[in-house]
């Protein structure tokens, strides 16, 4: 097994990307990392229509009269803000690990760990708490620990080492979400780094986890690592024999993928991705598709990583909500 290679970013480049991401939002500046939650503070948020269950003491009679609808009352809502905490969940399944043994490729797991490290650096700079977890390790007994500042590096090293050296479970692993995601604070942001190759129950479990992570004021970001462009280039250019990946059996021999073969595979993958996208298309969930470059190799991947990470920061709304 090759070792985890260094992140293509150096810290200065990463800081530069953060600055650029902040500038992209009109509300950038102080408080960019604050997340709102409903609260009982004196901070007025908005007027909204009265619904059953609202405290009648919050009905703004004067505003309701000015609104001019006698059957509709307006209530004043208040909110509190607090620094959010970031949970990064990495999918450690077999499809994420494909290509780990090949020194000329960058596996999705390696790219995911690069993203984790970059996010950890940002969290350290912004003094926000961050936690790392893999999908498999979230059980009802485990607790995700959030760390800040100087502890982030140590936590990431421990996490990445454990995930890198572990082996993917045989067959389709389930996602043991447990109560951990339910215990997340309202101001939490959870980033899922995965591919959309899970199927059946594993897919449902992932979708449930994303739903839990986006409940209420919580925010969920699903970063989909799409390695098909790279793999398609390999299948197109080389004569290959295919090793087993997860539950998919090995195909030994010498194969040369034809155009129709690739088209058929691409259609199947796209259908799978569309299913995920449709399921995740709900409020509080941000879906970001991270496409790998269409040529294999470490250099191409590292170059693509630098470009795509900036887009990912913008799309994930870590520095502010769009709109």
């Amino acid at each position: 097994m090759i070792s985890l290679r260094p992140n293509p970013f150096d810290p200065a480049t990463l800081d530069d990307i953060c600055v650029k991401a902040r500038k992209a939002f009109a509300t950038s500046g102080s408080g960019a990392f604050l997340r709102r939650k409903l609260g009982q503070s004196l901070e007025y948020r908005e007027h909204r229509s009265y619904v059953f269950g609202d405290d009648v003491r919050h009905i703004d009679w004067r505003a309701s009269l000015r609104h001019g609808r006698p059957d509709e009352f307006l209530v004043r809502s208040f909110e509190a803000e607090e620094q959010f905490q970031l949970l990064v969940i990495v999918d450690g399944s077999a499809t994420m690990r494909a290509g780990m043994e090949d020194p000329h490729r960058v596996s999705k797991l390696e790219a995911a760990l690069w993203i984790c490290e970059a996010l950890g650096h940002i969290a350290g700079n912004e003094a926000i708490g961050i936690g790392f977890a893999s999908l498999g390790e979230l059980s009802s007994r485990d607790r995700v620990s959030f760390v800040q500042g100087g502890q982030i590096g140590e936590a990431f090293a421990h996490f990445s080492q454990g995930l890198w050296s572990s082996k993917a479970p045989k067959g389709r692993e389930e996602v043991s979400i447990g109560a951990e995601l339910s215990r997340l604070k309202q101001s939490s942001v959870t980033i899922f780094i995965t591919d959309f190759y899970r199927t059946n129950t594993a897919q449902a479990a992932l979708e449930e986890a994303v739903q839990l992570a986006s409940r209420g004021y919580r925010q969920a970001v699903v970063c989909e690592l799409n390695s098909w462009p790279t793999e398609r280039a390999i299948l197109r250019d080389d004569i290959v024999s295919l090793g087993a990946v997860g539950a998919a059996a090995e195909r030994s021999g010498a194969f040369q993928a034809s155009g129709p073969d690739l088209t058929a595979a691409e259609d199947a993958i796209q259908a799978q991705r569309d299913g995920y996208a449709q399921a995740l298309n709900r409020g509080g969930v941000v879906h970001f598709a991270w496409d790998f470059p269409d040529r294999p190799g470490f250099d191409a991947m590292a170059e693509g990583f630098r470009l795509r990470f900036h887009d990912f920061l913008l799309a994930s709304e870590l520095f502010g909500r769009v709109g």
Partner: protein
Amino acid sequence: MLLGLLAFATVGLFLVVLLVKYMRRSKVRHVEISALQFLPELSEARQSRVRWQVSTPLRSPLFWLRFLILLTLLAILLLDGVLVPTKNAPAFGVLVAVDHSPSMAVGRPTRLQLANEMADKIVQHVTAQGGCSRVVAVPHTTPSNGVGDAGVSPIAMMHALSAALEDGSCHWTHLAVVSDLPKPPFFALSDARGQEVVAEGEALAADPLWFQVGEPEANSALTGADFKAAGLGGDGARLSLNIARFGDANSDLSLVVTGPKGQILSPDAPVDLGKGQEASVSYAVSEPGTYQAELEETGEFALDNRLALSIGAMSVLPIALDSDVSAGPLANLARQMAPVVGAERDDAVRIGLYSDQDGLGERGIYLVRGEAQGVNALGYFQKDSPLLEAVDLDLLEALKPRGLERLPEGFRSVAAGADGKVWIAVRAGAHPAVLMPEPAGGLVNANLADAQHLTWLVAFINAYRFVNQDRQPLLDVSHVDASGARLENLAYESDTAKPLGSNPELDDIQPVSMIGEAQSPLWPWLALVAIILLVAERFVALRLSGGRTA
């Protein structure tokens, strides 16, 4: 030759085949595709789709290993016959030559004692380094006095060392010479002991370690003598003795020269022997015999102070020309060879025309006049006679010399015609004589500068040498000891005042890695490389065949 070409072509063909095979090889890449579950059944790769790829062999370690194996095999065929020198293990053998020549007895302590101490130090150093050594005395000494009987030159030292180099008990890597002489610029090894020893010793003798011992000591020596024979004008014979002084001038010198009868000679002119580095003392001598010269000095080295001078004759033999040959080219030639005197001198070589038996009584060369008519030119020659040395016998025949009908009494024939007539005859004894034909064209008209007379000239000069050969050498000089015994090679011994040079440091004498004369062929080493490459190729191939390549 044919087999070699065949093997060369075979290996070259394999090389080309290997290259083509790898360039056209369809490399099957073993990959993990994360989207494997979405892939349909893929098409089998077809050979026709495999393309030429230069990069494929360059990336393959197996290709490089197989390429190197074939290259090594090619090199074995190409470099067949190439030899490489073998390198032996570091060796350390020092042959220490201690000069035991007479001048080593000079000094207190003597130079020989100092040399032996130096030799001991060298031996101790070599022994401490784990090497072997041997001390050799040059020249070999006699038990009586510890030094050699005669002087020795640096070259003569190597004569003695040749024997020591034959000693196979040690591999000699250094030659150390301990002497009172300074290191000579050239030090050659004698080949008296055979070419093999010379070849081995030349490397050592090329740059010997030279240790010089002994402080400079003043010395004076009789270095030689010159003799001037009595002149024709009545001036007497002169004997000159040469004296050389080495080091500081020694004023206490005296030279005593005694004649054959024991009489003490006086120098022609008084000479102050206390001045100058060289001096020459001249004496008038009047009779042949053995003279003795002895130099008295206060220096220690006395072997070069005594000379024995043997004078054979006081003058050269003159030539007496008969009246028949007193003019013309032959007379001119005779005057160039020796003084020409009148016929009354008893010790003269007479040159004249042959007339009859009675006229042949004296030492001389007698010429037979006239050409032979109608004689058979075929001649019979006594090939080992000195008279015919360097004489072209064919040209001698072409002269058609007139021969004598019969051999004169006391003569023996050297060359004769086919008709039995004598052309050249010689007589040995107290009055040596030669009979030979006159030059072509006669005594008066012959042009001796003409090339056709060269044969006659050579024979004439040979004849003059023949009639002079019983004469003793004019002067013979040698160093002798007090008993009159002859001493050799004292020329290198007299200068005991040579300054001391710088000696090598003992620590600089270290074991050396000798490049031996023996050479071994290169191909076994190349074959070893090929075998190692083959093993590596098998190892890599087995590993890869169990792994990623189909």
